[in-house]
C-alpha cells in the first residue's frame, strides 16, 4: 500500500472518532436503583405489565452473580452508568425533521445515501431512542412493521405482548436481566404470513455520550411462510472510560419462514458489549445469524438458535477480529430440540497485537431430537506472538442417531504465502491484509454488497500497522 493510500485509510478511521455536543432532554441519574427502573417506565408511559416485567428483571439482576466463565467483567462499574438518555422528544418520521446535529452525525456515517438508494427501511438509534425511522410505503401496504421497539409496544400491543420476553426471559442470564430492566429502543419487525420482504431491513446503532449504557431490545416476529433479512451495524465514538452495551435480540421464526440476521459490530475499543441473541426456529423454518465483531473492548456474544420444530435448520457464521486490548469472546449455539433438524456453525477469528479471540460454542441434541445433522467448524488465525486464541466447544449429544462433526484449527499466516504475494508486487502489509480477507471470505460473501465493502474496509483498518 502506498503512503497516500495508507493516509486515506487512517483518515477514514477518524470518521468514527467524533463526539457531538448533544443537549439531552431527559436522562436518568447515574447508577441503577428500583427508582431508575420506575422512572424509565414512567417516562415512556408504559403499560403496567411492562413495569412489572422490568421490576422482576431488576430483582433478578441484583440476585444473579456475575458470570465467572469469562474474565474482566468485574471491571464494569454499574453505578457509573447512565441507564437512560433521551436525545430527542419524539420519533421522527421524515428525514427533514431530524435535528441538524444528529443528522450531521448520520451523514458522516453515510446512512441517508444508503437509505435513499435502495433500502426498504431504516431505524437508526441515537443513544437510547429511535430518532429516525422510515418504512417504505409498499412494505407498509403488505403489512410489514418495522419500527422502534418502544413505539411498537404502543401500536402493536397484542403481538408485542405475545412474543416479548418469550425467547429470552429476564432470568436467562445476568445481562439479559439488566437489559430487561432498563431496555430502551431497538427494532421491532413483524412480517405477516407469506410475505417475502424483498430488501434487507437495516438499522444503525450508535452510542454517544460517555458512560451511556445502551440497552436496546430487538424483537423480530416472522409469520408462517414469510421471509426477511435484517441488518444491523454499529459504530461509536472513542472515549477513555468504559461504556456498556447490553442488548437483547429475540427472533421468532414461525413454520416455514426464513430469517437472516446480520450484524457488523464495530464499537469503539472502550465498550463492553454483552449481548444475548437468540432465535426460536419452528417447523421447517430456516434461521441464519451472520455475526461479525471487530470493535469493542470486550464482546460476549453467542448467537443461539433453538431448533424447536421438526425440519428446522440453522446456519451461524461468526467472525471476530481482536486487536490490541480487545477480547472477543464470541461463538454460537445450536440447540436441537426437535427431530430432523440441521445446524451448521462456522467460526473464524483473527487475533493480533496482543488481542484475544475466544470461540465458545454449544451444540446440544436433546432426547427425542432424532435424525439431527450438525457441524461445527472453527478456524483461528494468530498474527503475532503477543496474541491469544482459545476454543471452548461444548458438545452434548443425547440422541443415538445424531450425526455431528466438529473441527477446529489454529495457525498463523505462512511465510510462503506472504512471500508469494510479495513476489507479485504486494507490500508485506497488503499481502497479509489480502490473506486475512480471504480467510474471512466465508463471512464477507454472505453480506449485501455495500456491507461487504464496508466490512473489508474495517478489516483493513484493523490490519493497519499489524506488521508494526
Amino acid at each position: 500500500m502506498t503512503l497516500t493510500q495508507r493516509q486515506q485509510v487512517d483518515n477514514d478511521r477518524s470518521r468514527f472518532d467524533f463526539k457531538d455536543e448533544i443537549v439531552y432532554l431527559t436522562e436518568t441519574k447515574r447508577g441503577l436503583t428500583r427508582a431508575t427502573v420506575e422512572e424509565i417506565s414512567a417516562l415512556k408511559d408504559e403499560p403496567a405489565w411492562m413495569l412489572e416485567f422490568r421490576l422482576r428483571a431488576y430483582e433478578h439482576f441484583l440476585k444473579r452473580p456475575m458470570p465467572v466463565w469469562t474474565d474482566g467483567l468485574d471491571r464494569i462499574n454499574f453505578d457509573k452508568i447512565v441507564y437512560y438518555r433521551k436525545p430527542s422528544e419524539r420519533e421522527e418520521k421524515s428525514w427533514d425533521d431530524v435535528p441538524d446535529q444528529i443528522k450531521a452525525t448520520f451523514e458522516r456515517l453515510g446512512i441517508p445515501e444508503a437509505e435513499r438508494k435502495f433500502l426498504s427501511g431504516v431505524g437508526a438509534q441515537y443513544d437510547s431512542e429511535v430518532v429516525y425511522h422510515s418504512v417504505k410505503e409498499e412494505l407498509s401496504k403488505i403489512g410489514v412493521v418495522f419500527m422502534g421497539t418502544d413505539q411498537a409496544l404502543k401500536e402493536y400491543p397484542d403481538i408485542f405482548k405475545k412474543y416479548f420476553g418469550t425467547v429470552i426471559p429476564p432470568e436467562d442470564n445476568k445481562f439479559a436481566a439488566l437489559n430487561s430492566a432498563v431496555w430502551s429502543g431497538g427494532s421491532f419487525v413483524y412480517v405477516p404470513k407469506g410475505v417475502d420482504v424483498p430488501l434487507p431491513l437495516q438499522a444503525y446503532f450508535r452510542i454517544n455520550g460517555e458512560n451511556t449504557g445502551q440497552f436496546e431490545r430487538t424483537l423480530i416476529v416472522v409469520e408462517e411462510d414469510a421471509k426477511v433479512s435484517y441488518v444491523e451495524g454499529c459504530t461509536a465514538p472513542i472515549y477513555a472510560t468504559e461504556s456498556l452495551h447490553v442488548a437483547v435480540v429475540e427472533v421468532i421464526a414461525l413454520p416455514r419462514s426464513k430469517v437472516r440476521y446480520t450484524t457488523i459490530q464495530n464499537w469503539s475499543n472502550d465498550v463492553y458489549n454483552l449481548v444475548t441473541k437468540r432465535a426460536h426456529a419452528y417447523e421447517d423454518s430456516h434461521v441464519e445469524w451472520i455475526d461479525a465483531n471487530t470493535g469493542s473492548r470486550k464482546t460476549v456474544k453467542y448467537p443461539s438458535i433453538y431448533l424447536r420444530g421438526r425440519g428446522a435448520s440453522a446456519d451461524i457464521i461468526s467472525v471476530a477480529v481482536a486487536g490490541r486490548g480487545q477480547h472477543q469472546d464470541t461463538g454460537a449455539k445450536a440447540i436441537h430440540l426437535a427431530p430432523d433438524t440441521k445446524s451448521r456453525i462456522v467460526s473464524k477469528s483473527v487475533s493480533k497485537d496482543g488481542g484475544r479471540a475466544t470461540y465458545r460454542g454449544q451444540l446440544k441434541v436433546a432426547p427425542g431430537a432424532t435424525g439431527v445433522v450438525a457441524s461445527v467448524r472453527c478456524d483461528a488465525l494468530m498474527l503475532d506472538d503477543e496474541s491469544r486464541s482459545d476454543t471452548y466447544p461444548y458438545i452434548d449429544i443425547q440422541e443415538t442417531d445424531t450425526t455431528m462433526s466438529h473441527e477446529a484449527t489454529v495457525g498463523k499466516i505462512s511465510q510462503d504465502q506472504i512471500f508469494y504475494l510479495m513476489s507479485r508486487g504486494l507490500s508485506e502489509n497488503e499481502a497479509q491484509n489480502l490473506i486475512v480477507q480471504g480467510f474471512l471470505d466465508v463471512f464477507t460473501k454472505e453480506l449485501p454488497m455495500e456491507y461487504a465493502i464496508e466490512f473489508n474496509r474495517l478489516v483493513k483498518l484493523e490490519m493497519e500497522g499489524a506488521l508494526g
Partner: protein
Amino acid sequence: MTDALKLPFAGEDRVRRLSANLKEPKWLLGDRLAAFKSYLDLPIETNNLFTLYVDLRLARFAEIDPYEETTEAPQVADVVPEGASALIEVAEDKVVARALSAEAKSAGVVIDTFANVLRNRPELLREALDGGTTLPANDKFAQFARSHSALGVLIHIPRNAALEKPIVVRWAAGEPGRGLVSRMLIDVGENASVSVLEEQLPTDSHAEAASETQPQSLWWGTTEVRLAEGANLNFAAQQDFGPNTLAFVNRHATLQKDAQLNWALASVGAQIHKSRIDNHLVGRGSGVRQVEIGFGGGRQLFDATSYTRHIGADTTGDLLSKGVFLDRARGYYKGMITIEKTARGTDSFLGEFAMLMSKQARSVTIPSLEIDQPDVRRASHASSVGPVDETQVFYLMSRGLPREVARKFIVLGFLEPVVSRIPLGDAQDRLRRLLEEKWPASTELDAIGKSEAAA
C-alpha cells in the same frame, strides 16, 4: 453439584494415622498434611469450563471405609508372568505378588512399595515426591490421594536401562464398603525405555451387577510419571472393575527433552470412572501420544479430563478419545490443550469421538484449545458423534454377516486402535473379550435395530 465432594473418610487424624502405620519419615507426613490442606481448600472442579460436567450423584461415599493399613500377604508370589519382565499385584489391602525377571534385576530396576523403598533407598522417593510436583496442585482428587494414600508403588528405571518386556501392575478391588487409596510413581531415567501394563480387576466374586443394597467399593489411585531426557514409556491400562466400584484416577506426567510417552487406556468397568490426565511437555522435542477408550453400559459414567501443556519448543501431542455408550451410560470427555508462549513449533491434535448405541445414552465432549504461541506446526481438534454407519453395516451384511454381528464388528473396530496398543498379547485378547462380552445379548440388539428402523 459443584463442591458437593464431601468425603466422610477424609480427615487430618486419618492422614496422621496412615502415615504412622507406614512408619513414614517426617517429610512425608509434612507432604501429606500440605496436600490435605490443598484438598480442603480446592473446589471439586477449578476449571470454570468444566464445572457443569462433574456428576458424582451415583457415589455413596458414606458407606465406604477405606483401608487404613496395607500389608504384604503371608505368601507373596514371586513368579514373573510369561511375556513380562516384572509383576506387582495388590489385592484389596494386600501385596500378593512381586516378581522381577533376572534381566530387570540386572538392569537395576526397582519395583516395590513405598514402605519398603523408604526403608532401603529413601532417596529414590524423596526427591520425586517431596513438594507434590508429580500431581496437579489444583485438583482436589489428586490432593486427596496425595494426603490419604495407604499404599505406594514405585517403579524405578535407571538411566539407559531398556526392558523389552512389559512390567505388569495389577490391582484387584471390589470388597463392598471398603476401598484402597494408593499412589504409583514411575520414574524413568535418561534414555531408559520401558512399558507398563496396568490391570484393574474386580476381586473374585465381586463382578456382579451394580447393587443398590450393597455398599459400593472404592479404588482411588494415581500414576505419577517422570521421564528424564530421552526416556521412553509405553503405558497401557485396562480398567475392568466390577459395576459396584467407584474408580478415581489421576495420571500426571512430566517430560524432559526428547522424552516420549504413550498412553493407551481402556475403561470398561466401574459405576463411575473419573479420571484426569496431565501431560507437561517441558523439554524440547518431547511428545505424548494418548489414546483413551470407554465402553459403558447400564448407568456407568466415564468422566475423563485431559490437560496437555506444551511448554518446550517442538513438542508433539496426539490425543484421541473414543467412547461407545449403551443403555443409560454417559461419557464426559473434557480436553484442554494449552500452547504456551515458549512452545514454538508445537504439533498438537486432540480428537474426541463417540458412538451412542441407545436412546438414553449421552455423550458430552469439550475439546478446548488455549493458544499463546501461533508459531505452530499444527494445532487442531476434532470431535464427532454418530450412530453406527449404516453403509458399513450394509456392506458387511452383503458379505454374509447377520446385522447384529456387523454392528458389533464396526463398534469393536472403532475401539481397536487402543486395543492393538496393549503391549501383552494375552492382555490384548482379554480386552477384546471384555469388549465383546459387554456387547448386549441379541434380543436387546433386535430392539435397538427395530427402534432405529422405526426412526
